[in-house]
């Protein structure tokens, strides 16, 4: 009885954790879950896009890049905190999405790096972008622009949908493995 109640609460919590505005996309065996991009100050030159990419197929694929009307250049970058130094590097050969697994692009790890922004990204807006995969091809998606407030790191880390999935298939590529 107690177990059932707890399971129900857990399930409900997981459901609530999915933002109402989250938009998921399908491209063949790939699913792109909750793409969102950080709101920026006026004239800010860059922003970071985040999402979870799931691969239900039996072959790995690679996220190789993308494009967006609002950015002059789009790359895949990895950020890490090394000691107390922030380092960021381009993932030039693409980000592998393992067969039957998923990769989270999230604060403290991988992100779509939107550079040469030609407009401010304001919270509440939606921005179109195209993702490019090695095998699955391209897909047009919309990023929700979000003010990533203090504490939102927690939200995206501990409550994202990946936790509701089979952990054995979850691949966390982030180098520091910490909660930021």
């Amino acid at each position, binding site marked *: 009885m107690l177990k059932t109640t707890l399971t129900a609460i857990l399930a409900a919590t997981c459901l609530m954790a999915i933002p109402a505005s989250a938009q998921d996309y399908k491209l063949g065996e790939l699913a792109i879950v909750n793409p969102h991009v950080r709101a920026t100050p006026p004239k800010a030159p860059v922003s970071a896009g985040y999402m979870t990419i799931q691969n239900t197929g039996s072959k790995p694929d690679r996220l190789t890049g993308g494009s967006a009307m609002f950015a002059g250049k789009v790359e895949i970058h990895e950020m890490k905190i090394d000691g*107390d130094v922030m*380092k960021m590097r381009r993932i030039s050969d693409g980000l592998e999405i393992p067969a039957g697994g998923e990769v989270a692009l999230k*604060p403290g790890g991988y992100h779509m790096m939107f550079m040469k922004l030609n407009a401010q990204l304001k919270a509440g807006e939606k921005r179109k972008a195209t993702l490019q995969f090695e095998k699955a091809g391209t897909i047009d998606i919309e990023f929700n622009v979000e003010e990533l407030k203090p504490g939102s790191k927690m939200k995206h880390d501990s409550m994202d949908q990946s936790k509701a999935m089979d952990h054995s298939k979850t691949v966390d590529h982030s180098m520091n493995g910490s909660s930021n």
Partner: protein
Amino acid sequence: MSTARTIRTVSWAALAALLLIVAGVLGYQHLFSGTQRSLMANTQMGAPFKLIDHTGQPITERALAGKPAAVFFGFTHCPEVCPTTLLELSGWLNEIGDEGNNINAFFFSVDPVRDTPEIMRSYIENFSTRITGVTGDPAEVARLAKAWFVYFKKAPLDDGGYTMDHTASIFLVDGQGHFKGTIAYGENSDTAVAKLRRLAKSTNQ
């Protein structure tokens, strides 16, 4: 003294000298590696400087004198750490309210070539009116960063552009520039607020 004993003595002396040199080099690297571990309470931070603030006005070390300060080095081509830190610092200062009115907050650019005062202004004013942006001559910025034990390095990107590696912690100093601690990136907000409250009371120590 026999020849053998002389050789032995000289050998030991050479070994001791070598160990001292190694220890010295390691100690120097440790001290200047920019990690907070190398900093001790009351270490004198900063140095005199002549730079430009985000309103385009000249700014010197006098802006830090007499009041405790929270100091962060970053850049505007920074997708995560800098906007998050400025947003959090702004939130913490709001939370402390009047109690923290005496704390000055500074955002020094480690990328002064791209971070013009105009860009710094629109960037910073988006987060807070409490934070002063500082940019200016690259050599002066580099010298100042060293005096704050801050590491930064240009990391080229394939397209000819670049990003910056940099120390991601906020440094806390009292009104005399004495090191009082750091707030690490991603640090728990309650801890950060407690540190700022303590810092606000550190004046005239």
